[in-house]
């Protein structure tokens, strides 16, 4: 095959991947009974940038949140993360949404699930994941500009009350239900019991925590998730009803693919798949240069037939983090139309990324001194009272 033939084949494969990606999300939305965000985009006075760009693209019951927003009633958002490494741009998109929610009145709860990191073998020890949480993850979150009065961060292994809450919620479900929702085949059977306890009890406890009396009782809560995390919401909604809480709403986001291309995630376990918010400028540059793109091996072919922005991690990095809707739409057309080639796209991405990293890392240094203001210390005594 000559280069043009290779380029043609590659282009067709990329188009197919883009089409499969679209179909995957459409099918999942249907399967899970999720609704699109159209009405929120129409009516919200100030929808989030992620909503405008279609990154936050579906929901379940988000109406309960807009009702609380419009009536200035208390509401909360819960979004946890696994401290198996520093934050990367895949995490940042969720925190951008959380920041928007805080600006709209939400109390933000961020469980740092170092227990999960440990039980699923993403961290060598609880101590290691705890260290990463305090040294890298929490300062990075704070550096993004959260308001300490409305942000409640806790590291699971340090906030032991979460396990009392986990015991409390576990009484409202069954292993049978948990197996049905999360699956329990041979792979799961080989896992340690902690994984199932984490998924079916601790995770649900984190989601329902803001509705406990210590935090003001039942209130609308939303959880931003990737579409594969829908089962957690199903279980937590079920438990919420049994506890006379409000079933949590779900906001579904498309996740930034890893730099290795479609189907990959930004993950600490895959070398070179993520740009960490702690990466040096030089490392970030190398990662961008080596990244997969939606373009072609042949510049001539790409000029003629265009790229496939839908599956290009570099285009998506720009879209998700640095461009507004109009800029992103413009770049999409330029890349799709072959007016912008991979080199230029990567140069643009590097320019934005390097500026962001410099600023973020400076803020992180300052943030380390503020950690205590953000850590949740409230004791949960209501479940211990007779």
């Amino acid at each position, binding site marked *: 095959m000559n280069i043009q033939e290779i380029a043609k084949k590659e282009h067709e494969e990329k188009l197919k991947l883009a089409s499969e990606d679209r179909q995957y999300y459409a099918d999942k939305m249907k399967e899970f009974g999720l609704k699109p965000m159209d009405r929120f985009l129409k*009516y919200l*006075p100030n929808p989030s940038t992620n909503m405008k760009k279609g990154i936050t693209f579906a929901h379940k019951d988000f109406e309960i949140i*807009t009702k609380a927003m419009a009536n200035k009633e208390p509401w909360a958002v819960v979004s946890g993360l696994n401290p198996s490494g520093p934050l990367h741009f895949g995490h940042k998109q969720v925190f951008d949404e959380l920041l928007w929610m805080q600006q709209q009145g939400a109390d933000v709860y961020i469980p740092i699930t170092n227990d999960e990191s440990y039980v699923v073998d993403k961290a060598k020890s609880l101590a290691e994941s705890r260290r990463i949480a305090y040294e890298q993850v929490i300062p990075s979150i704070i550096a993004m500009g959260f308001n300490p009065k409305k942000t409640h961060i806790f590291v699971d292994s340090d906030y032991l009350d979460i396990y009392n809450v986990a015991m409390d919620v576990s009484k409202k479900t069954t292993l049978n239900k948990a197996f049905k929702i999360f699956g329990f085949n041979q792979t799961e059977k080989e896992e340690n019991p902690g994984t199932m306890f984490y998924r079916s009890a601790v995770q649900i406890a984190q989601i329902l925590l803001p509705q406990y009396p210590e935090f003001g009782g039942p209130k609308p809560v939303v959880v931003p998730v990737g579409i594969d995390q829908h089962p957690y919401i199903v279980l937590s909604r079920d438990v919420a009803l049994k506890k006379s809480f409000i079933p949590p709403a779900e906001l579904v986001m498309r996740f930034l693919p890893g730099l290795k291309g479609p189907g990959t995630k930004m993950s600490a376990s895959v070398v070179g798949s993520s740009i960490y918010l702690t990466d040096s400028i030089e490392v970030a540059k190398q990662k961008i240069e080596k990244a997969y793109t939606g373009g072609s091996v042949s510049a001539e072919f790409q000029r003629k037939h265009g790229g496939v922005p839908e599956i290009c991690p570099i285009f998506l990095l720009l879209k998700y983090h640095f461009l507004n809707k109009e800029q992103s739409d413009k770049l999409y057309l330029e890349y799709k139309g072959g007016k912008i080639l991979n080199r230029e796209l990567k140069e643009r991405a590097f320019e934005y990324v390097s500026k962001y990293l410099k600023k973020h890392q400076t803020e992180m240094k300052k943030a380390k001194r503020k950690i205590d203001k953000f850590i949740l210390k409230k004791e949960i005594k209501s479940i211990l009272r007779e």
Partner: protein
Amino acid sequence: MILKELLSQKGLIMQSPKTEEIKKGVEFIKEPIKIFYGETYDEYGNTLDSMKYYFFVDNIAQSLKQEGYETDPIIMVADIAACRNVSPHLHKKYMDLGQERVKFIEKIKKIYNLNLRIIKMSDYIEKKEFQEKIKKVEDICKKDPSLMKMVEKTVPESKIELERKKGFAYSFDEITTILNLNIKIGPPRENLYDNIAREIAKREKSKPLISIYLTPAFPLGVDYDFFIAHEGIEEHGITAYKAGSKRLQSFRIIIGKTTKVEAKKLIEKSFLSANPKLPNPVLDVGIISEMARKRLEGEDTPITLYDNFYNGRISPKKLKESIYNSLCTNILNKLQ
């Protein structure tokens, strides 16, 4: 106001045939052109939203008159239809409410100097002529599955079995009532009945009904969250003439019941967007109040409020203030 100007008023007209089509549709009619608006009611009172239709029926009659046509503007109070929706022990109460609605329209007619003929459904429904007509309409529809499907569509899905048992009496009353009219004014959802009437007219080789739909009514005092949660509300809104439509009677201006203080609160708390594609209940109050003012002052010009707001000549805050003042001056003070 010439017909073209009347039908071009943004924020008031939802859908209308072109002036030429209307003129063509009414040419060679020897009798005065029947311009019709019919409404039911409920126990919660007379809505401000109904007034939009009373004013408009009079407006279009005047415009056609200026064009040289004889007109017969009719407001029909569907007392029998209103009774069909309530249990039998409430029939007497609802017939009395129908009489009250007639009195209310008479009052509007007098204060705003409207030339309207007010009729009640009970005045004609039992007459032999109408009963024969209903029978004929039922026969035509029952023989044609496509027409029966259209009749079924006039009923909400949740009530279809109940209505089937009643033989779709409400729908057939409505279709028969509008069958030999010339121009019908109504909210957009009435196209379900109007289309059947046009289909029947086509089969009977008679002049088809001309429909003009005014913008739907929306609740006041609710914010964006209400509209987000009510999918599809943009299309049909709430029933203009039934104050308790969708149990939102506390979010409507009910003439004689809603105080000025309550009206002010409702307007202030209402959703107001600069996007003309979204519902604008505040502007609607403004347009009705403006129609009232024009009637009181004898001014025969188009409404400009829609353009003034959406072109940014008036701020949302100012719009709410001025609309409240206009509502008080031109409607509430006159009717309370």
